[in-house]
């Protein structure tokens, strides 16, 4: 057989080495995509797998795809994922505990079976001849693809174009929130409050200390516990309220100490105190 063919179905040891190393990486990435508890981590590991795949494309002579894989997939789509993850809540980690009875076992079972079957299928499929992409890529991989896309697959191409447009519009429609009813005026809101009878007065303000404008610090109730009402809904849902009840008490205690220290001295110099008062004017 010619070297050409030989090159076709056996590969250089370099490629073999690359395959075994990166392949493991890819599999690990895939597995961690599945088993990471936090969506962010899954997304990142998936990105890793994709990059590995991009390399494999290049190795298989699909230069254009390789680049596209990196630019479009890893660059765009995965970023999109991350955006959404952030939108939905980075911190929101879902438990891997299964709710549907027997679901997990069935899933693993069928997955295993499917995998085995695939392997068997590939195994006894006679895939010996690899006449590589040599002459296919003779005058450039991109040109080759282009000539195919704009001749043979032109209709499919156009249709996918249309599909993309539709998808874009669809995404906008889905995510765009139409204001169905007129925004309530202050007056109406007030009336509603009175009608509902809860919180007739305005909500209590968050406990703000001079040292920073902390909307995320709940105001404290007389017994020193933080009041949920004082912080905005979003923060409450994100669970990002900073509970400062204890440190507030500590500060108070510290204050008292200092006051006592003061008290020992202030008795003899009220004038200065007054003067300072005037000075402050």
């Amino acid at each position, binding site marked *: 057989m010619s070297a050409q063919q030989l090159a076709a179905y056996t590969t250089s040891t370099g490629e073999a080495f690359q395959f075994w190393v990166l392949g493991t990486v890819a599999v690990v990435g895939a597995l961690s995509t599945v088993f990471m508890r936090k969506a962010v981590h899954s997304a990142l590991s998936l990105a890793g797998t994709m990059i590995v795949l991009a390399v494999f494309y290049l190795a298989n002579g699909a230069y254009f795809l390789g680049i596209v894989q990196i630019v479009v997939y890893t660059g765009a789509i995965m970023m999109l994922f991350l955006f959404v993850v952030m939108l939905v809540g980075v911190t929101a980690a879902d438990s891997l505990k299964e709710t*549907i009875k027997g679901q997990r076992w*069935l*899933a693993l079972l069928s*997955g295993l*079976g*499917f995998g085995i*079957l*695939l392997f*068997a299928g590939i195994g*006894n499929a006679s895939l010996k001849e690899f006449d590589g992409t040599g002459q296919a890529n003779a005058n450039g991989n991109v040109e080759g693809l282009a000539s195919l896309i704009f001749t043979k697959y032109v209709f499919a191409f156009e249709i996918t174009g249309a599909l993309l447009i539709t998808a874009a519009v669809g995404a906008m429609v889905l995510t765009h929130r139409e204001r169905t009813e007129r925004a309530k005026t202050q007056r109406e809101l007030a009336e509603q409050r009175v009608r509902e009878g809860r919180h007739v007065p305005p909500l209590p303000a968050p406990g703000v200390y001079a040292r920073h404008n902390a909307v995320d610090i709940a105001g404290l109730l007389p017994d020193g516990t933080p009041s949920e009402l004082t912080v905005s809904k979003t923060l409450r849902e994100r669970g990002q309220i900073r509970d400062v009840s204890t440190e507030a008490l500590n500060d108070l205690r510290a204050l008292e100490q200092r006051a006592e220290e003061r008290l020992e001295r202030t008795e003899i110099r009220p004038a200065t105190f007054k003067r300072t008062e005037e000075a402050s004017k």
Partner: protein
Amino acid sequence: MEKLIALLIAAPLLGAAVLLVGGRRLDRVGHWIGTLLSTASFVIGLVLFAGLLGRNAEHRTLIQHLWTWVPVESFQADVTFRLDQLSMTFVLLITGVGSLIHLYSVGYMAHDERRRRFFGYLNLFLAAMLLLVLADNYLLLYVGWEGVGLASYLLIGFWQHKPSAATAAKKAFLVNRVGDVGLSIAIMLLFTTFGTFAFGPVLDHAGSASEGKLTAIALMLLLAACGKSAQVPLQSWLGDAMEGPTPVSALIHAATMVTAGVYLIVRSAAVFNAAPDAQLVVTVVGAVTLLFGAIVGCAKDDIKKALAGSTMSQIGYMVLAAGLGPVGYVFAIMHLVTHGFFKAGLFLGAGSVMHGMNDEVDMRKYGGLRTYMPVTFVTFGLGYLAIIGFPGLSGFFSKDKIIEAAFAKGGTEGWILGGAALLGAAITAFYMTRVMLMTFFGEERWRSRPTRSPEAPSAEPAAEHQGEHAEPHPHESPKVMTIPMIVLAVGSVFGGAFFSVGDRFLHWLEPVTGHSEGDSPLSAATVTGATMVCLVAGVAIAWAQYGRKPVPAVAPRGSLLTRAARRDLYQDDLNHVVLVRGGEHLTRSLVYVDHTLVDGVVNGTAAGFGGLSGRLRRLQNGFARSYAVSMFGGAALLVAATLLMRAV
């Protein structure tokens, strides 16, 4: 002249339509419209009668064909009228008595706010009855037949707010329906036998049919007659029918409708003549009813019910006569006519009495009324003499002839039937005398009257608004009521004589019904003598019982027979137990079966499928992921399948 026949029916029919559709605005004149139209019909009848008399005997049949009614292949029913001597007789009786009773009702129903409707129904009845007797084929006759049934239903139940009246009406209609089944089966048999059911062809060819078929037809006709004419075993409705206003009882349940059965038999003479067995059955029915009615009539304290019993028995006479064949037909009709006079008269008299007595119907609350209502007394008395067959009065001639004819039947049957007829005459004399005595003689039991006795329910609503315990002030009825009574009384006095002198009636009817002199084992004189003896005996016994000693105001327990007779010889109770109760149970069980069995099977299968699908439904738990699992598993199976395919 044929053209006039339709008018006979049209006049009262128009009246009925106008009065029933007209609404309240006719309330003031309604009764006069009704009376006028029935009288008009009577006048037309007279004109036609004159016309018939003008012709010679064999051309006295007028046919008027109006239109083809139901044409389906060989089944051809036409609306055709036939006016011959027989129907002419009926026409005159119906319209004549009818008009009188219309007149009477004007007074009698004066206080009823639904009088217009009442007259509408009366006219409807007249129309239907005329249709019945004028029809030229059995199917058209059937229409009239049911029409009078409807009218009687409406009139019996005229005071519908009384459950008793409504029930009585329903009962009457239902019992009649049973008879109608007979009539319709008879018509079907006629159709299958002769291919037609028009009087002409059927009666002409009656002889050529097989006797079995003819007997069947005749028996079915008899069943119909029993229903309509209240003959045993379908007599039970007549007594209750007295719930209706008295004029109704007089017109429908004494003079005309109940005699339709006799008309049917006489009309189908040819068929009966060819079916001797059927004839025998007819005579037996007649004889039995004659005694049955008479016995019942003896025991009733309700004056109308007593008269109803007597009606039953008198019609029994007619049926008996009709069953005797050509010997009896003429006399059956003659007795029918005379009976029409005096029985109507008696009922009107009874009505007049009730009118004067706050609508009290219990004879035990009457007594000594002759001085208070002389006209009623006289007319009633004449009717009484007529019905018991007092020599010279109409009842005498007609009934006597029937008894003769019964003996003339010959053989043991002849003796039995004749004996029954004689006995009947005696009992008739007894109970009529009883009625007479209890009502018009004896001390005045209505003074300081006690509470009304339970078994005599008030027949009229007037009782309610006149107050229960108001002591009645017996008084003569107004002219408008007495005049018809007088006319009828005249008829019941002279009718019989007029008909019998020179056998006028015989010659008049003979062409239609045919006539043959039977050879009686007894001479006419003997029979008459025997009848007289029975009559005297009956009167004497009645006098002994009710004339001499005072009548107790509350009915005594009485002998076994009396009690039985009070309850219509338990025949009604039998019906109730067997038919009503049985029927109720049957329907109830059927309803149950329909619900559980017939429906249950279907619902069962339905439930089965429901359960199955309920189980299958568990798979669809709505979780996308479990659907995905099944999908994935399916995919795996597909791969496996393909691999296997490649393997083999």
